[in-house]
């Protein structure tokens, strides 16, 4: 649509058009829902939108990246097993239950007292720690 200014222009106080009652809605992509009278303003907006120049980057992306916080450093892989081992050692040394558990574990691992009953404890423990270690490696 070719838009040209009308002569003479309307003046303030001139009665508004009947379609300006807010009951009809138009939008760009949703298409015209009311006929005629608003079409020219829609066309004008679309023409203006089509004329908008593309905004070049001009270093904008670099500025954004420079203002971003430093990348997160992942925790070292050894930190979880080391913390677990340290916690277990402290618990074993400082608590009566820990001392009892450590003593029992030593008895279990003592090859001189080894019996088939020990396997019922050692095998589940080995499976548990094996799976945990495998999961940590996959992470």
């Amino acid at each position, binding site marked *: 649509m070719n*838009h040209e*200014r*009308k002569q003479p222009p309307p003046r303030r106080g001139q009665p508004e058009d009947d379609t300006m009652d807010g009951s009809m809605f138009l*939008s*760009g992509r949703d298409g015209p829902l009311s006929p005629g009278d608003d079409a020219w*303003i829609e066309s*004008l907006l679309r023409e203006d*939108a089509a004329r908008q120049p593309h905004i070049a980057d001009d270093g904008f992306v670099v500025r954004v990246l420079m203002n971003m916080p430093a990348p997160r450093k992942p925790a070292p892989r050894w930190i979880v097993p080391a913390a677990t081992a340290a916690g277990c050692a402290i618990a074993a040394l400082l608590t009566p239950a820990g001392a009892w558990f450590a003593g029992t574990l030593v008895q279990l691992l003592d090859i001189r007292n080894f019996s088939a009953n020990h396997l019922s404890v050692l095998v589940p423990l080995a499976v548990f720690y094996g799976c945990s270690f495998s999961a940590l490696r996959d992470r």
Partner: protein
Amino acid sequence: MASEPVRVQAVEPMPADGPPDTALVARVLAGDDRHAFAALVRRHQGSVRALLRRLCKGDDAFADDLAQETFLQAHRKLDQFRGDAKFSTWIYRIAYNSFLMAIRSRHPEESLDENSVDGESEHHDGAPDLHPEETAADLQMDLQRAMAILSPAERAVIAQCYYLDRSHEEAAYALDCPLGTVKSHISRAKQKLKAHLQVWEPRTS
């Protein structure tokens, strides 16, 4: 006004210049991939800056500052992106919120539904001056002035629906308001634009 549920089409077309936005978002979330985030910024900076420039009525430097803040916020909040809307719509929402916070801090007394209070609104409350050599540049300038008299909310709706070619639903999501509010903003905005641009109305023969 009754609040209508807003449903937004979240299907994103495959962009020609690389992986889709959702894949880039996943890479950023998985390993803080800066290259993936840079690709997202590069892809959307033009439309976000254009939107904010329009909202800021031509204050390009201020709009670009807001755009930068928008992307930094998007990076911080990326884990909140659920994919229920397009990434672009989601980031327009952040941009609009940044704009609102900025104008509230600049003009705390200004309501979002009121017309702007700076000098531009006084400039054009009647017909523009006429010159014999009217051109497209004049139309563009008149339109820019007319847009400046709209309230921030009306300007945002017009920018979403016409300049970014968003549907009503997407505009409602981006502006975080009911669909009915979007429609009434469009209606009011067009009334104002028509009143200020009547001289450009094509003659009917």
